[in-house]
């Protein structure tokens, strides 16, 4: 059933490259105006999924409906609705920044009387107005990524697809790019593929975790984090592990799980109430102690493990 509130509906997608299964019954729904993050290890199928959505690849079977249009029936219409930024900002090296945007504006069918204004606006948005007449081959990766974003936005698309937009960029440039994405949030439907959990946590309305070509978990960052045992994780580093003491602390009512990592205990708690009592059990043997709240990293690692 296709809801009017849905922008993208991926339905039973399968895709293989030779003997490698890239997508294995992928089902995913993205609402209008939503920013969905897709996280997953290398080879999880994230890029394949977004390339199929962008009508660059064809699935072996299954379909994607974009605003009600099938990728099999209306690929050209769908392409004109999407602004796609691939992982590598592969741009035509010999072009000047302004010419490049002009070229893509014409290809997207932007009316000729609007092109110049649109280019100025986008160059301003990505902070590249002063470099408009420079050739792409003189730009650093960060600057190319900015021009790439401007290129993806040139036709004012309803949907934006970003594949690892901050990959390999320095922290300052990454923050700039995240800021652009944040500005666009709400106005457009955005799919953001990323390796960076903090990026997904910071920007996304919902996060889908992909592994081996399928979605293994999905929800808001908060929902996903709450699925991790406990609200707090207590890390205790000891001189050596102490199994009798570990058995003892499992009897505490706030303790949900106890894991070991070398001479370290990782204790998931559903409240802070009994922390002092737990520390008393290991009295005299503790080398260091710290507490942290679960992050998407923990969710991701936990999901991949299970």
């Amino acid at each position, binding site marked *: 059933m296709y809801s009017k509130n849905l922008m993208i509906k991926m339905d039973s997608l399968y895709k293989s*490259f030779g003997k490698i299964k890239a997508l294995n019954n992928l089902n995913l729904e993205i609402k209008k105006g939503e920013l969905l993050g897709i996280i997953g290890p290398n080879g999880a199928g994230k890029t394949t999924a977004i390339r199929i959505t962008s009508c660059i690849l*064809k699935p072996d079977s299954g379909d994607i409906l974009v605003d009600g249009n099938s990728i099999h029936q209306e690929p050209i219409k769908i392409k004109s609705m999407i602004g796609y930024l691939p992982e590598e900002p592969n741009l035509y090296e010999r072009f000047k920044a302004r010419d490049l945007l002009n070229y893509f504006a*014409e290809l997207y069918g932007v009316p000729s009387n609007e092109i110049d204004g649109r280019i100025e606006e986008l160059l301003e948005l990505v902070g590249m107005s002063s470099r408009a007449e420079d050739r792409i081959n003189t730009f650093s990766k960060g600057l190319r990524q900015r021009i790439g974003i401007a290129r993806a936005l040139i036709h004012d698309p309803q949907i934006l697809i970003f594949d690892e937009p901050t990959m390999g960029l320095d922290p300052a440039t990454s923050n700039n790019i995240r800021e652009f994405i944040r500005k666009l949030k709400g106005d457009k439907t955005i799919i953001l593929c990323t390796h960076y959990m903090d990026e997904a946590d910071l920007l996304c309305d919902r996060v889908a975790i992909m592994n081996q070509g399928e979605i293994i978990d999905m929800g808001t960052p908060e929902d996903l984090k709450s699925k991790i045992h406990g609200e707090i994780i207590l890390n205790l580093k000891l001189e050596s592990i102490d199994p009798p003491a570990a058995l003892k602390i499992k009897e505490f009512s706030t303790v949900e799980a106890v894991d070991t990592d070398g001479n370290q205990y990782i204790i998931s708690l559903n409240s802070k109430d009994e922390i002092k009592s737990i520390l008393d059990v290991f009295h005299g043997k503790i080398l260091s102690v710290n507490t942290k709240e679960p992050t998407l990293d923990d969710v991701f690692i936990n999901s991949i493990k299970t």
Partner: protein
Amino acid sequence: MRFSIITKWELKETLKSKKFLTIFFLQISVLFLMIFIFNTFAANIESEKGISITPSLSGFASLDVDDQGHLFSKYINPEIIEVKNYSYNNSLERLKAGQTTGFVFVPEDSIEKIRNIGTINIQLYLDVSDPKRSVIKDEVNSTTKIMGDSISNSWVDSIAPQNTTPTVNQQNTGESLPLQIITKAMIAILLFLPLFLFGNMMIDSVVGEKERKTGEILMAMPLSTTEIIIGKSMAVVGIIAIQVALWMSILLLTGFQIISPLLVYMLVFITAIPVIGITVVIAAYSKNYKEAGIGLTFGYVLSVGILMVPALVYLSNKSLSSNISPLTMVIRILSGENIPIWQFLIPLGFVIIVSVIAYWISIKLFERDDVVFGPRPGLIRLSLELVGLKKRRKTL
């Protein structure tokens, strides 16, 4: 019509490139060089001396001669073999010492023997350890034959001078037929040459998209594969059209006669379409420049063969089927033949058929994500899949 956007920008960026402009004008300088070489060649052909296309063998092998009556030595060609006069004994010693390759001994009484209608015995000594002996042997045999013929003719003339063949004084006017054919064929070939000078540009335009990974963005554009392929091809065809027009103008300005230049231009121009079509097939299939380079060599040898072989067939027996090649038609136009209009349909039809097939294959290849992004199926399997004899392989 969005293919024209790609064509426009490809042309614009190419014509702005200094590297391209350098290559473009270097090609024109090559044309000037060819015109110069051809004019020198033509001048030599037309001169009394003619032109020698055989390299000189002077000094290659030496031959000692003991010919007291100067019967043999006046017929031998000194440009081929270095002839040295030595006595019988000296020559044999030189031969043994490896200082000469051969030795010819003509007996002193040979002239006397000829006068008495006797047989003369010329002796040839060869150093069998010297591989150049075969050259000496051939040259001595041919000189002996020339000498024999000459002596026979002199003898016939001396006994019956009235039988001497009357001499014909030749006055040459106009251009010799071989030179005429060479000139027309050369102009035609020169006009078709630019078709094969821009293959790398086409390869760069398509394979470059794969290697630089810009193809991913292009394929995300609201364009069909047909528009992408046609747009890129037309840019290269456009460059070829400019170069052919320039070459034709230069040929006309340097005094070459081109009959019906517009018709000739159109024939060359339409031939660029299937030639570039074949190049796009190679580019669409190739994973990288190296592979495309190998494919391009093969494709162009095939294309040149398709153009040249019918043209050569036409020059030898004027068969109708040889008109399949536009080059044949251009040679015929340049030769001033009256060609019925329907005969133009033969090369035109051929060009259209090859173009449709080539562009269809290119589009089908470029549509396939396994060909563009990999893993690419083998050539045989891919061919069978394209013609529908096998279904595309899917894991599920």
